[in-house]
Each structure stands twice: as C-alpha cells, then as structure tokens.
C-alpha cells in the first residue's frame, strides 16, 4: 500500500493533518510520498488533487483505492484505511 499525501505550506488544515499522519506512521508501516502543491507542481498535477487540501490518495499496486480530503480524526483515518486495505502494525 502506498499513500500520496498532497499538502501546502499555507494550509492550516495540512499542518493539523501532518501531526495526525505522523502519529499513524508511528503505529503502522505505510509507504508515504509527500508532495507540496507549490513545490512539486508537475508531480501533483498527475494526481488531480481537487479544490480541498490536504489530500491523501491511497494506492495498491498503482490502483487508486481511496481519496481522503480535509481534516479528519486519527481513528477515523485509520478506520477508512483499514476499510480498503490491510494495515501492518510496526514492531515496537
């Protein structure tokens, strides 16, 4: 599973979701590609991020499974991710 995370420096919601995502990454093994809407313009265009940031695009074998936009709670995010694929917990 791979998650493409599209943010912007100027977006408060992205800053809030950075914390949420970092907490999730502490618990689960998820390959993440971080993109900035202004810095990685060409790359971002490929994913057609839409009008609301941040965007989390979940892929499995290059197939888009899910798109999560805006601010959501950590538990809700985990629930949504578990709904489309298996999450591997990290060995602590």
């Amino acid at each position, binding site marked *: 599973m791979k998650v493409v995370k599209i943010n912007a420096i100027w977006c*408060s919601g*992205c800053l809030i979701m950075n914390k949420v995502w970092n907490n999730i990454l502490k618990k689960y093994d998820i390959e993440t590609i971080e993109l900035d809407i202004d810095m990685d313009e060409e790359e971002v265009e490929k994913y057609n991020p839409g009008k609301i*940031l941040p965007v989390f695009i979940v892929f499995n074998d290059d197939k888009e499974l899910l798109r999560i936009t805006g601010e959501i709670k950590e538990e809700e995010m985990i629930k949504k991710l578990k709904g489309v694929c298996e999450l591997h917990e990290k060995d602590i």
Partner: protein
Amino acid sequence: MKRIFSFIIIFLFIFPLTVFAEDRNIKLYLYYGDGCPHCEEEMKFLKTIEKKYSNLEIIKKEVWYNDANSSELQKVNEAFSINRIGVPTNVIGETIIRGYGNGTGSKIERAIKYYSNSENEYIDAVDGIINDNYKYEEKENSFEKKEEESDENVSIDVPIAGNVNLKNVSLTTAAVVIGLIDGFNPCAMWVLLFLISVLIGMKNKKRMWALGIAFLVTSALVYMCIMLAWISIAVKITTVIWIRNIIAVVALIGGVINLRSFFTHQDSGCEVVDDKKRKTIFKKIKKFTSEKSFIIALVGVIGLAISVNMVELACSAGLPLVFTELLAINNVNTFMKIMYTVLYIIFFLIDDLIVFIIAMFTMKITGISTKYNKYSHLLGGVVMLIIGILLILKPEWLMFNFK
C-alpha cells in the same frame, strides 16, 4: 338625594381634571425644508403622534423658500448657541432636536411626555424668541438633564470592572464577537502562513520578528483605514432609509453565503487558492524576504500586506460593513468609534497573532484547525442574517439605547 346627585355631577367634572391634570397643552415647532427627505420622514412620524397626543399642537415652518421663517430659525439657533442651520429642527419647550434619524422619533416623544407633565417647567422658547423676551439658561431640572441621567442609568455595577455602561458593553461585545468571527475567515491567513514559512527558513530572528510584525501591523492599519472610511460615510448616510436597507441586503446576502459555505463544505480543510494569484504572492514574498537590504524587504512586505488586505477584504462578506453600520446608527463619538474599531481589529487579528508568535518562539508553523473556519461561517452567517433582518424591521433594537 339632591346632595348625592350634586356630588356625582361635581365628581364627574373634577375627576377628568385630576386624572388629566398632567396633560398641559404644548407646542412643537418644526422647521423644515420643502423637498428635504428627512423632513418628509419626520412629517410622516408627526402625523402618527398628532393623533396620540391631543394636547400637542404642531406648528410647521418652511425655511428654504420662506425668508421670514428662515430668519426665525436663525434666531432660534442663535438663542440655543447653535452655529449651523439645518433641517429638520424641532423645538419643544426649551428643547431643540435637530435632524431626523434613528432614535429621533423616540426622543421627540420623550420630550413631549416631559413637557406635557405639569410638574415639569414648560416655557415656549420659540414664542419668547419671536417676542424678544427669551434667554436660554441652563437649569438644574430640565429635559436635557433628565436625558443625561437616563444615559447614566443604563449602567450597572460589575465587580472589579466597576460601573459599566450597557450601551458600551453591547458595542464592545459586538466588536469582540464580529471581529473574532471575521478573523477566522481564512482569506488572509494563508498569506501569513506563506510568509512565516519563508521567515523560518531565514534563521535571522530579529528580521523575522520585524517583517512578521510589519505584515500584521500593516494588515491591521489597512483594515482600520477602510473601516473608518466606511464609518464616516455610514454616519452621513445612515439616516437615508434606502441606503440602510442596501446595507441590510448586503448583510442578508453575506449571511446566506456564509451559511451556504457551512452546509456545503462538509469537508474541513483548505480551499486551494487560485493558482496564478498564489504563485504571484509566493514569488513576491520570496523576493522581498531574501532582499539583502532590510529597508527594501520591509517596504516590500508592507506593500504586500496592503495589496493582499485590500483584495481579501471582499472575502469578509460584509462583516466589517455590518459592524461599521452598527457604530453609525449608535451615534458614538469619534474617539469611541476609533476605539471600537481598534478592538474589532485586535480580535480580528488574534488568530494570526497566535500563529505568528508560536511560530517565532518554536520555529515551527502551527495551523489553527480549519474546523474553526467552518464554524465561523455558521456564526458569521447567523449574526449577519440577524443584523440584516433587524436593520430592515427593527433598527432601534440595534441601537442599544435601553430606553
């Protein structure tokens, strides 16, 4: 039997006199201009009270086309030490009420009630002025003194704060609440976050503080200048009903837009700002902040703050306009207008200040949840709808005069 009959007859004659003994006959002099819209409005109002107060005689004197009446008004103004002649001018007893706007009608009625009461002194000043035997003197018991006292009576004792005037409290609350709601509007916040991200990269704390503060102070000043300009216009035009109604319609439209945003944007998060505009601003920020000369960097950031705030003001969807209208219809003095505007701007900038100060101390950008933006749309929408409806139907409820 004859005695009882006589008693009834005497009682029937005397009773009405004792009950209505207070209602002395009084005169209201109205100096008006033919074609003056405020005068027309007042005439409509006077028609309604003419029926209500049978002891009231209304004497109307046209001054724009009638020289005799005009010089009489001049004399009246001189007697009351008033320099500027204006219409409508009302004189009841020794009270002069100039202009006609929100609250004038109720003041005229209070004056009528005051002079109708036989316990209060009634001198027909205009009659005296015409006959050259009147001189205005300040008295201990007068309608004006009573009005001043009732202004003082709208205050309450609050522990620690002491004596607090309710009118001031209401406008203070309005400044804090509307300013706060307006502040959570994300339009200008994204530029500040852009700026902070670049400033943090500079690693020069003094420069960071100076440029950041320059941006915030300039934003505040631009907002303040625009609001004060609106107030000065609003004060002049607020008595024109149709202009007040236009402001009310702006408030209603703003309210609907805000509520629509709350209900349609179920996803909290940041709306992507127009690509071209965003890139231009980003380039400018990078250019100005990387300038070797501090002065050029400072001027650049100030210029940026001016342009961003001028453009983003439209994004507030009328909240500052509604607040300035509140100040205008409450007829507060110039100093207080500035104070309330400053208070509004402090609360408008409070979220930006928090983000900036945290970033400067921790060297990390902190975001304020976009969920607050969402609820600011809900609150802003409700506040604007209420004010819009009241401006049209019950403007006196927004005057916080508690009388």
